[in-house]
């Protein structure tokens, strides 16, 4: 059998490449897409962050400004407001997600597999559906006069059973969940919590499944209570999973865009009360058409994510990865 096939056409050669060039051909789509949509643009955005440029006016209008874009963004109080909002939302919704997900996962693994599967499917559902769609549903639920949340609060305050606990409701109605500068952040955080807790529950359930059953049995024989078994066995062995899940939450939450964008109709809320850094970046770039400053902001956000992830790694990395 010879591999000598004289005079192949280019098509045949493409489909039957010599062994040496085969991997490059297989990787060609990745390499091309990476260079065109990955590396080049990334380098260009560094370049751009040192220039003034309005994309409508074409490439000629680009002007070098040094660090001015960074200085400009740094001096804008809205950036700091957005930074505060982003960190507030990240911490509030992030903490709530993990504090709920871990105990839930612990109870779930104790259940029969059928019930566990049904519950997990329900919890995970928000994660697979479109953020825009579910945010619109929440937008209507938060509506001051017609939303189910306010209607429910009124109904509770009028009910005989719970009326005493909700007697404050008529005084504050209608609650403007998304227009009140005080309420809007919790409202956004709740949507984020609702959407991503299921994902974390699945991570933690998987983690708990990896813990050998006999560890618990041994502890039980030694007379450890359910709480102590959770505290001394589940939690320490879950650490790598907690570490990983929290890393994902930090990176994801700091880039929060769609939820606050839809809930505030793209405005960022009254007085930027729910504007995140990503939304701020979007506004500067696509509404004020200042791509230079927008690029500078995106690099500042990148550095922020880097710093917070590094702090997280520094504080919890060694324990988190089980000191391997």
């Amino acid at each position: 059998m010879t591999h000598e096939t004289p005079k192949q056409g280019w098509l045949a050669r493409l489909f039957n490449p010599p062994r040496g060039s085969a991997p490059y051909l297989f990787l060609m789509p990745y390499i091309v897409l990476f260079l065109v949509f990955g590396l080049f643009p990334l380098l260009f955005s560094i370049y751009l962050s040192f220039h003034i440029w309005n994309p409508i006016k074409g490439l000629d209008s680009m002007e070098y400004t040094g660090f001015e874009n960074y200085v400009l963004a740094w001096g804008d109080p809205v950036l700091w407001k957005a930074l505060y909002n982003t960190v507030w939302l990240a911490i509030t919704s992030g903490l709530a997600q993990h504090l709920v997900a871990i105990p839930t996962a612990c109870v779930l693994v104790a259940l029969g597999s059928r019930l566990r599967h049904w519950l997990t499917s329900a919890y995970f559902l928000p994660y697979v559906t479109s953020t825009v769609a579910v945010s619109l549903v929440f937008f209507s639920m938060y509506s001051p006069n017609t939303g189910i949340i306010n209607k429910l609060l009124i109904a509770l305050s009028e009910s005989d059973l719970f009326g005493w606990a909700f007697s404050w409701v008529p005084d504050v109605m209608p609650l403007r969940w998304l227009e009140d500068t005080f309420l809007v952040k919790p409202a956004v955080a709740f949507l984020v919590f609702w959407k991503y807790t299921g994902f974390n529950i699945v991570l933690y359930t998987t983690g708990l499944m990896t813990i050998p059953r006999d560890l618990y049995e041994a502890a039980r024989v030694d007379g450890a209570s359910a709480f102590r078994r959770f505290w001394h066995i589940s939690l320490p062995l879950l650490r790598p999973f907690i570490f990983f899940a929290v890393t994902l939450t930090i990176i994801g939450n700091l880039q929060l865009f769609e939820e606050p964008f839809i809930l505030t109709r793209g405005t960022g809320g009254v007085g930027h009360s729910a504007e995140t850094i990503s939304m701020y970046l979007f506004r500067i770039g696509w509404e004020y058409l200042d791509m230079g400053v927008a690029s500078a902001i995106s690099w500042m956000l990148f550095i922020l994510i880097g710093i917070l992830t590094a702090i997280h790694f520094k504080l919890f990395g060694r324990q988190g990865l089980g000191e391997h």
Partner: protein
Amino acid sequence: MRNRIEALSPYVVRAMMIVLMGLLIISALMTVFPFFWSAILSTHSRETIFSTDITLMPGDALAANYAKLLEIMPFWQAMFNSFYVAFLGTTVSLLFCSMGGYAFAVYRFKGKNLLFGVLVGSMMVPPVLSLIPYYLTVKFLGLMDTHVAVWLPFTATPFCIFLVRQYVVASIPRELLESARMDGAGEFTTYWKIALPLMKPVLATVAIVQFVFFWNNFLSPLVVLNSTENYVITLALRSVQNLPNTPWGAVMLGTTISMLPILLFYSVSSKQIISGMTSGAVKG
């Protein structure tokens, strides 16, 4: 205290377990409530939505809402665009990611370590950082307001290539591929006829991850598509949010229908979707 809890009779422990289970079931119901609620609202008229009563029953305004929906946005055009983008994007992703992952798993070649490092490194780049560059590249290439710009750049995702690579390394024996070559099969034939059929499980994962991504994607269409007839469904739904006197029944009907493909798919294979969507997290 601790011993006292332990000393509680098994009945009490059982009762506590039942209470916990009840809590979990209630929270599961609350989690799915918004989906149910958007379906209910889509059958109600403006009058019943605005009344102070809470009704969990379907109303009778479904037809009127549907007519209104078609009036306020090119709904089926947008649904078609989303399907088109998600289908093409997913299909091409399957090809590109399986090729890339296969190359990393099977071959030794110059620059492999560098390329693989770049692959893993680019998984760490937050999407927001690449938003402006992505927009600029699309502009340079003259692809503004085209669907290609919404699917093509995301078809060779590092994450999916990585998944395929891991799967091929772990589950496809090298000897099998070697023997195919011995029998005179070319490189591409070996990949296409021998390896690809064996990759089915990981390809299913790639398909799930990519389809869900393309269907739900909002940010890249938002900056690239600007004419209404090119809108994907997420853009179309958002565009009616600022209408004066928003017709909520119609908007919720559109929202509900837009979620149906994923919901139906999820209801038949939630197990596979859950493990697919968490595969990177759980195995990584």
